[in-house]
């Protein structure tokens, strides 16, 4: 079934799927079954790394790159003159199994252009996933895109077989989405998202009573936002993510720096390169919300609507709140330790365990992996007091931290000499 001719299809349909940044294969722990193939580990496994540095964990592929929609930011839009092709459900199931058996991949990520109508497309995709689970007895990871506008019944069916479902919002505000994607609106994206979160919740409830009740998208749902294609601020973006995490229970929001694939379309900005640094800062901010207990408005707000490209958001927060520092490493509450720049979740675990044995000093912290270069201004430990952010003033600390980074490689980045402070501190 898979033959030489599949090479060309793979080239086109993997090339078409590469703009979706989701690559996680984590979140489900699924054991193999008798006579079956595959399992899914809770932490996920990468199997290779593309030359753009991104992890390759899943066979990320489109069922088809024909599409009836004409979204300005999308490479696969109807009006683009590109080679088009489709895989049959059997071909994709087959390719997945063959790659999986060779340990090339951790599973399948299946997306598609919209063929004819959303339900028709969804049906085909569901048939791939169902084939893998039932005919091939495959227990590995599957991430499936939900087509905006697909019916409840098909979403329910998809959630039964897949580990993760996702719908991409792409553009953070509805007005901008309408301009760039005339065939879509927020409703068409948020409706299926709601169906998925309801499905997940119901299945969780049911499994409390019946251990064998069917799973529904056990690894949760995610979405993607394109960054830099519109004038939306980081404040808008992070507020949206924060709402999705709390109200829709999303596992991940991915941020994709806009790559001008349709540069002739004048609704889009002309960029010389994708805004990679901004994308990186957004991931850091997102991390702070998910693992460090930060609220989105602590990271960016109406006063400072965009993330600082020069310093990471945790340092920025600390510099805006010098009155909370220095923190005593030997006594501080874990939630406060988490807020110290240079200390990550791993070193906190070590600190909490080690300080039960004895008082810690900076040499201990260094050995445990604390980045003292940043942390030194925000902590006190069991030794002579060094100058901290209160003694030095935030502006000076900011300058010191900037000087320690080699910004020389990026001449276009001007150092900001005066640091914007929160109103409370002025």
């Amino acid at each position: 079934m898979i033959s030489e001719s599949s090479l060309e299809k793979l080239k086109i349909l993997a090339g078409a799927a590469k703009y979706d940044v989701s690559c996680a294969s984590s979140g489900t722990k699924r054991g193999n079954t008798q006579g079956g193939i595959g399992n899914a580990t809770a932490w996920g496994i990468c199997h290779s790394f593309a030359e753009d540095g991104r992890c390759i964990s899943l066979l990320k592929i489109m069922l088809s790159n024909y599409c009836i929609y004409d979204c300005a930011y999308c490479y696969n839009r109807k009006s683009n003159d590109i080679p088009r092709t489709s895989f049959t459900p059997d071909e994709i199931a087959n390719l997945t199994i063959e790659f999986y058996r060779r340990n090339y991949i951790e599973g399948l990520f299946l997306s598609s252009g919209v063929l004819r109508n959303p339900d028709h497309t969804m049906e085909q995709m569901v048939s791939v996933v169902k084939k893998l689970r039932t005919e091939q007895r495959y227990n590995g990871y599957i991430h499936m895109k939900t087509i905006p506008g697909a019916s409840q019944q098909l979403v329910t069916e998809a959630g039964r077989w897949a580990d993760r479902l996702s719908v991409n919002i792409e553009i953070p505000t509805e007005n901008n989405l309408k301009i760039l994607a005339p065939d879509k609106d927020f409703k068409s994206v948020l409706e299926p998202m709601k169906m998925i979160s309801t499905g997940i919740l119901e299945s969780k409830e049911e499994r409390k009573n019946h251990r064998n009740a069917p799973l529904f998208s056990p690894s949760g749902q995610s979405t993607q936002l394109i960054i830099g294609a519109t004038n939306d601020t980081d404040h808008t973006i992070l507020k949206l993510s924060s709402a999705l995490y709390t109200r829709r229970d999303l596992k991940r929001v991915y941020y994709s720096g806009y790559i001008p694939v349709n540069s002739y379309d004048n609704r889009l900005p002309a960029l010389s390169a994708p805004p990679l640094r901004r994308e990186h800062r957004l991931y850091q901010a997102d991390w702070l919300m998910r693992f460090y207990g930060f609220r989105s408005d602590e990271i960016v707000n109406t006063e400072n609507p965009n993330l600082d490209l020069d310093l990471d958001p945790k340092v920025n927060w600390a510099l805006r709140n010098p009155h909370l520092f220095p923190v005593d490493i030997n006594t501080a509450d874990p939630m406060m330790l988490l807020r110290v720049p240079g200390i990550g979740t791993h070193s906190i675990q070590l600190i909490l365990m080690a300080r039960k044995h004895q008082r810690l000093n900076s040499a201990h912290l260094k050995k445990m992996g604390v980045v003292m270069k940043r942390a030194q201004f925000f902590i006190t430990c069991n030794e002579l007091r060094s100058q901290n952010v209160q003694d030095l003033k935030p502006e000076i600390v900011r300058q010191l931290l900037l000087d320690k980074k080699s910004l020389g490689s990026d001449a276009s980045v001007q150092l900001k000499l005066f640091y914007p402070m929160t109103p409370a501190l002025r």
Partner: protein
Amino acid sequence: MTIYSFDNTFEGLLTLVFECYSRKQFPDEILSGEGSQSVLFGSTSNIVTDDRKAERVWNGIISRSSEDNAHRIYRVFLSGLPDAPLLLVKYIRLIIDSTKNEETNFSLPVVVEVNKLHQKVCREAQRIHMFTRFQKTIEGSYYASYAPMYDVLPLCIPHFSDRFADQHWIIYDLKRNYGFLYDMKTVSRVVFDDLKVNPQNGQLHASLLAEDEKLFQRLWKQYFKSICIEERRNDKVHRQHLPKRFWKYLPEKL
């Protein structure tokens, strides 16, 4: 100067610890079996591995700390680094002599060092999970080989025997010349004298490959190429995540 030597097995190392306690003499240096370096000062006591003594030390470690910690010690041993045995003897001594569990006392250098090395070994084992590439043979079984930095294959086998339970496979460590064979029932340790494998890239001899094996390698290579976004090209990060020493075994990098 107290020097011990042992047979370089984990049981041997545990026996050595037992002997240290019964002789009340702890080593300044430990030599492993095959490397019979000439010793200028002092004489060397050779330790004869004794499974019962080893077990007592193993149980002692568990009762003074935890089972996790005992396994941690085993994994650090698998690093095979020349300094590891002496480090482990110091560590085990700390665990056994302390009244409370010291395995989380990260203010002690020996604890930090053991944990660092442990992390390195685990990371290498993870890389084998990640970068193992099976080749399908004409008989329909699957073969993979590697030369890991540490002796981590034993740690990886449960993962593969669960995941690839319905296919026959062999994973072979080319550097240490042994591997594991899975026959859909059990896993056994194997040594091949006449392996028909190109030691340069771990590829099986062409006559042994399934008819469509080369096609799937090409498909994978094509996928690898197509999935890369040229505008985001980042060779530094690429090399950081995918260490060069693995490239020669990966069809996508061949």
